[in-house]
C-alpha cells in the first residue's frame, strides 16, 4: 500500500480523498494555489505545497508543478480527483514516468475514452448499445445528410472532442442540416481545436442513467448499480439518485451486467462509470468516465462500499475482495449539489461564509470543505457542498432530504439550497417522473 498520496485537487473532493487516505493510514500531501491556502484539506493534510497562483492553468492544471510537488515530498501516488488533471492521459503517463502511481486506470484507457468517437467504437466492440449514428467522423455534409435520412430526424451533430455540452446541435429536418453542419464544425474547431463531427439519433426525453463499475488488475469486475443523474441544468448535474425510479431489478441487473462485461472486455481497471441515455426501455451508451465522479456518494450510501478507498487499493494492485454476488444494494440515496449561486439566476456568489452549520443525524451525510469564516474564491467551480441522504425507501429519503435542507445553514453567500427545497414540492420530482430536460424547464418556469 502507498505511504503517501499527493491529492492533485481542491475543495470537497480533496477533503474526500484526504479522509479516505487518513482512514487507511496513508499520509497526505495537499497541493494548492495561493487562493486556497486556508482550505480545509490544506489544513488537515500531513503536508501542503503551494503550487502556483489562483488561475487553475497555473496551479491545479500545471502538470509540472503538481509533479514537482509530488517529487519533493516523496509521494508515491497521485490522486487526481475529478476535473482538472483527472482525465489527462499525458499527466497519467508523466506520473508513471516519475515512478509514482496515478490513482486511476491505465493512460490508454483514459485516452481512448476521452475521444468520443473512439469511446463509442470501443463501447460497440465491447457489446454496449450505442445511439444509432455515424461510425466515425463525418466526411462531409453529404454523408451527414445521408446518415440523418437513414436513422431519422431529429438528429444531433456533435464535436468529436466536445464535452460539457459544448459543440452540439439538434437538427430537426434536412433543411437545417447544411447550416448546422457548418456552424458546429467551426465551433468545434474554435473550442477544441478539432473540427471533426459525428452525428447520431437525437433522443427526445431520455433519462441519464450511469453504471458504476470497479475493476482490478486481474480481470475481475463488479458493478454497483446505477445512478440516475437526469436532473441537469446546462448539462451540469444538479441532483443524483440511486436506484433510478425508472428501473426495475431485472433492468438494473441486465444493464449492470452489460457494463461489467464491457469493462472486462476492454481490459479496464480502477473505478469507472458507463453513462447511458435511457428512453422507452432502451439504453444507449454515451460515454465512459475514467475517474471518480462527483456523485459517487450515492453509490457509497446504497452499496456500503467506500469507493475512494477501493480506488486507492486497486491502484496499489490489490485485487477486488468480493464478487458481484456479494454486492448488496440497500435502500435509496439522493445527492444534492449545493452551489454558491443565486438560486434563481444562478449568478455565482463567492465570498466569505459567515456562518456554516451542516445538518446531522441518521442517514445524513455532508461532503463539504466549507467552514465558518471560509472565503469561497471566485476562481473555481461554484459547488461548495454535497448533501447526501439515505433512507430505506425513496419516500423516506425525500422526507429526510427536506428536514436536512431545513437544517442546513450557509450564510454570507447565496446558495442553491432554496432551489433544492423547491424541488421537493414539485410533484414530478417527488414521483420520480423526470427526464434530462425536466429541470431546465422547471427552472425556466420558475423564472418566468
Amino acid at each position: 500500500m502507498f505511504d503517501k498520496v499527493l491529492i492533485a485537487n481542491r475543495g470537497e473532493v480533496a477533503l474526500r480523498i484526504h479522509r479516505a487516505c487518513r482512514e487507511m493510514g496513508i499520509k497526505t500531501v495537499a497541493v494548492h494555489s495561493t487562493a486556497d491556502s486556508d482550505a480545509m484539506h490544506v489544513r488537515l493534510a500531513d503536508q501542503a505545497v503551494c503550487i502556483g497562483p489562483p488561475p487553475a492553468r497555473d496551479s491545479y492544471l500545471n502538470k509540472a508543478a503538481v509533479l514537482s510537488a509530488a517529487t519533493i515530498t516523496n509521494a508515491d501516488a497521485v490522486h487526481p480527483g475529478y476535473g482538472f488533471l483527472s482525465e489527462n492521459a499525458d499527466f497519467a503517463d508523466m506520473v508513471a514516468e516519475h515512478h509514482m502511481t496515478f490513482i486511476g486506470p491505465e493512460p490508454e484507457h483514459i485516452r481512448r475514452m476521452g475521444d468520443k468517437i473512439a469511446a463509442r467504437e470501443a463501447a460497440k466492440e465491447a457489446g454496449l448499445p450505442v445511439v444509432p449514428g455515424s461510425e466515425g467522423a463525418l466526411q462531409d455534409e453529404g454523408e451527414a445528410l445521408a446518415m440523418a435520412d437513414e436513422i431519422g430526424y431529429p438528429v444531433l451533430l456533435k464535436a468529436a472532442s466536445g464535452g460539457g455540452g459544448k459543440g452540439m446541435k439538434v437538427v430537426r429536418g434536412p433543411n437545417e442540416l447544411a447550416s448546422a453542419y457548418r456552424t458546429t464544425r467551426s465551433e468545434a474547431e474554435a473550442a477544441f481545436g478539432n473540427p471533426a463531427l459525428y452525428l447520431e439519433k437525437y433522443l427526445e426525453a431520455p433519462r441519464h442513467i450511469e453504471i458504476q463499475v470497479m475493476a482490478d488488475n486481474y480481470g475481475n469486475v463488479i458493478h454497483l448499480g446505477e445512478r440516475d443523474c437526469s436532473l441537469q441544468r446546462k448539462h451540469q448535474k444538479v441532483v443524483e439518485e440511486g436506484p433510478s425510479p425508472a428501473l426495475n431489478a431485472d433492468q438494473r441487473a441486465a444493464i449492470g451486467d452489460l457494463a461489467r462485461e464491457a469493462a472486462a472486455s476492454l481490459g479496464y481497471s480502477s473505478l469507472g462509470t458507463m453513462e447511458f441515455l435511457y428512453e422507452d426501455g432502451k439504453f444507449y451508451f454515451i460515454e465512459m468516465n475514467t475517474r471518480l465522479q462527483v456523485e459517487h456518494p450515492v453509490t457509497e450510501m446504497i452499496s456500503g462500499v467506500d469507493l475512494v478507498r477501493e480506488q486507492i487499493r486497486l491502484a496499489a494492485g490489490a485485487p477486488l475482495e468480493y464478487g458481484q454476488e456479494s454486492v448488496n444494494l440497500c435502500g435509496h440515496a439522493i445527492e444534492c449539489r449545493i452551489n454558491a449561486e443565486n438560486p434563481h439566476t444562478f449568478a455565482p456568489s463567492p465570498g466569505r461564509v459567515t456562518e456554516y452549520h451542516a445538518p446531522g443525524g441518521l442517514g445524513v451525510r455532508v461532503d463539504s470543505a466549507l467552514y465558518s469564516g471560509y472565503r469561497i474564491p471566485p476562481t473555481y467551480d461554484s459547488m461548495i457542498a454535497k448533501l447526501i441522504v439515505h433512507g430505506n425507501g425513496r419516500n423516506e429519503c425525500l422526507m429526510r432530504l427536506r428536514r436536512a435542507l431545513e437544517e442546513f445553514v450557509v450564510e454570507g453567500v447565496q446558495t442553491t439550497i432554496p432551489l433544492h427545497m423547491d424541488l421537493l414540492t414539485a410533484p414530478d420530482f417527488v414521483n420520480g417522473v423526470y427526464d434530462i430536460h425536466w429541470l431546465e424547464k422547471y427552472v425556466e418556469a420558475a423564472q418566468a
Partner: protein
Amino acid sequence: MAEESVNRELVRELATLLDETEIHEIEYATEALRVRVVRHQAVQHVAAAPQPAQAPAAQPAAPETAGAQALGSDSDLADHPGAVTSPMVGVAYHSPEPGAPPFVSPGDQVKEGQTLMLIEAMKTFNPIPAPRDGTVSRVVAGDSAPVEYGEPLVILE
C-alpha cells in the same frame, strides 16, 4: 475627576456592559473624560477549520505555520519587501553544479538579471534572475532544499 489616575471602575463597568450587550465597541465621553472600550472579534475567521491533531512529521515545520506542515522555512519572510520568491515548485540549488561556488552570498551586490539560484523542476534547471539591482542580505532557501510556489529564496535590499 482625578486627572492622573485611571478610573478603573468606569472602564470595568463599560467592559461589563460590552459583554452584556454583546457590543464590540463603546466610546463614552463626558466633558472631562473620554473612554473607548473595544473587544475585537472572538471569532477568528478561520477558527472553524480543524487543526491537524498529529504532530508534524519529519520535515521541519515553518515557524508560525499552523495546520499542515509547510515545506521550507521562513515562509513568513515571503512578505518581506526585498524577498525574491520562487516562481515554481521545485528544488533550489545555490550553485551551477555540485562543489562549485554559489551564485550569490550574503553581502554580494547583484545586478538585475543576474542568476541568484537554480530551481530544478521536472529535471530542468531554471535560473532565477535578480528582479533588480541590490545587495543580497540573506539567502533563505537552503541548498538542495524543496521550495514551493511563492516561497522566499533570497532577500535583496
